[in-house]
């Protein structure tokens, strides 16, 4: 009866209580009963490409130096940067120049992360937030003010953004997979500068150790 064995498989699965579906938004049950256990989202991968943030150094200085490399590398041409010379008495960034205008058009951004890779100062990184459904074109263009982290080093949370726990804590630090240019020799070596609110991020674990942990 080899032909009929398959029918039992599906029938058994129907009796199986455990579901693989994550109830994404909780639905009407959640809205009516405010039962937060229904409003679940799966944990996002560490290297998810979400909405960008502009980082600051631990002393509060902006990391962006207005070099426009991100704008140059952007395949979607969604980044607009204009640099300006720092005021010597009251500098915005540690270098000579700073990003005076910094805009990202999220109607065009494809979240490829090339800007993050191009950035020489790790000024632009990506958070894990991808649920930000703005309702007009003006909101789609994020200005420097909206992208820059606040004084505690956390990303600004705009009204239409659905931030969940953990999405703003690791805005960077995972951006370089194992090491710059993939050289395994840099595994376990901190290769990015400190950040406001977070300090120096822990180094990425050695790939082989991570693999052993996962398996």
């Amino acid at each position, binding site marked *: 009866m080899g032909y009929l064995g*398959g*029918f039992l*498989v*599906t*029938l058994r*699965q*129907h009796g*199986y209580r*455990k*579901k*693989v*579906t994550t*109830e994404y938004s909780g*639905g*009407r*049950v959640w809205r009516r009963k405010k039962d937060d256990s229904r409003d679940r989202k799966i944990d996002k991968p560490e290297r998810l490409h979400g909405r960008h943030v502009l980082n600051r150094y631990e002393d509060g200085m902006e990391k962006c130096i207005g070099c426009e490399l991100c704008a140059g590398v952007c395949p979607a041409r969604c980044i607009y940067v204009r640099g300006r010379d720092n005021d010597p008495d009251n500098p915005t960034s540690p270098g000579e120049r700073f990003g005076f205008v910094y805009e990202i058009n999220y109607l065009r951004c494809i979240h490829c992360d090339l800007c993050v890779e191009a950035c020489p100062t790790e000024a632009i990184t990506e958070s894990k937030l991808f649920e930000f459904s703005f309702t007009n074109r003006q909101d789609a263009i994020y200005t420097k003010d909206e992208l820059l982290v606040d004084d505690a080093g956390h990303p600004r949370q705009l009204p239409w953004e659905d931030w969940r726990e953990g999405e703003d804590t690791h805005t960077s630090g995972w951006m370089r997979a194992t090491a710059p240019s993939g050289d395994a020799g840099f595994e376990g070596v901190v290769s990015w500068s400190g950040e406001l609110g977070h300090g120096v991020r822990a180094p990425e674990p050695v790939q082989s150790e991570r693999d052993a942990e996962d398996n």
Partner: protein
Amino acid sequence: MTPRLPAVDPMLEGGLLWAPLLVVLVKVLVVFLVGLVATMLMVWFERKVIAGMQNRIGPNKAGPFGLLQTLADGTKLFMKEDLIPERADRFVFKLAPYLAFVPAFLAFAIIPLGGDWSNGKAGMVTLFGQQTRLQLADPPVGVLFALAISSIAVYGIMLAGWSSGSKYPLLGSVRASAQMVSYEAALGLSLGAVLLVAGTLSTSGIVGQQVTLGDWNVITTGFVPFIVFLIAATAELNRPPFDLVEAEQELVGGFNTEYASIRFALFFLAEFMNTITMSALIVTLFFGGPQPVSIGSTVLDIPFLPGALEGTVWLLLKVLVFLYVYVWFRATLPRFRYDQLMDLGWKLLIPASLGWFMLLAAQRVGNRAGWDRWTVTLVTALVIVGAYALLQAALKVSRDNRERDGAGF
């Protein structure tokens, strides 16, 4: 059994009166509405069950348990832009959805939907002082009507694909016509066994004879016609594993690729309505329709329910089983390849149902003539084996010929 030709409904005999007319109108309305609502629930049921079989949750957002999901989908389809391709045959393109939709509802008209079958009441109930059956129409040709109507539904699919002026729908409709014509034969032949045993074509007559569990046609015809009918019906409905007509992976969307908006909704509706109708037809033909389940003289009576409603409940339960089976098929079986489909239809189902029909017919003739039952069986079996050997020989010859000609299959 009266010798005269029975009228479509006994209450219509002797002149047309207002009350019978009203009853018929109410029945039409009820059957139509029940059909629509049942289709809506069927879509929900299918999605929910198949989700369960795949360890998913299924629709659960719109309405309680997601019951209104179909309504939401339907409303969305209504709002969508109605597209007609440039190269389509406009008239036929517009006509085709109705050719699929109307037969789906027409076939439902002959299904006995309930009634009081206890104590030989033959499903009669009293409505507005009229003795009637809970069935929209009970024509003397009932089952043939269902077959004829289901053949018309082929036109809907065929013309839809043809008139789209696009190649994938055309391929889908070519498959549809070939498949449905092939399986119609197996469907009709397996039905023949039931008609032979029942001796009537009227659906209420067929139901009326299946009083106890042992009288059910699935047993009196010996299972084989039922299995053939179930498989052929699945193919006739274009449901998985026989959904080559709309094989998404091969044909984009099959015959309905170019359809959008309400026209697409009509095809969708017709498909699910046909599933319900076919399940109800299987129950009517093989499982006693709205007859309560009774073993010997013990009737499984549903307590606290008037007899007139009990039939409907039984029918619903039995139909639900088959709807589940159809969904189960879909969740379990992968799609047939085209040559496998044709092989199954022509080389297995049609010979099997034909042979079984012959066996039953021989038994009947033998019984009437008083021949020895076992001799009759033996002779029929020998003839069937001989015929099967001939069939295999014929297949082998044609296969050898093909191979000699260099065809690759």
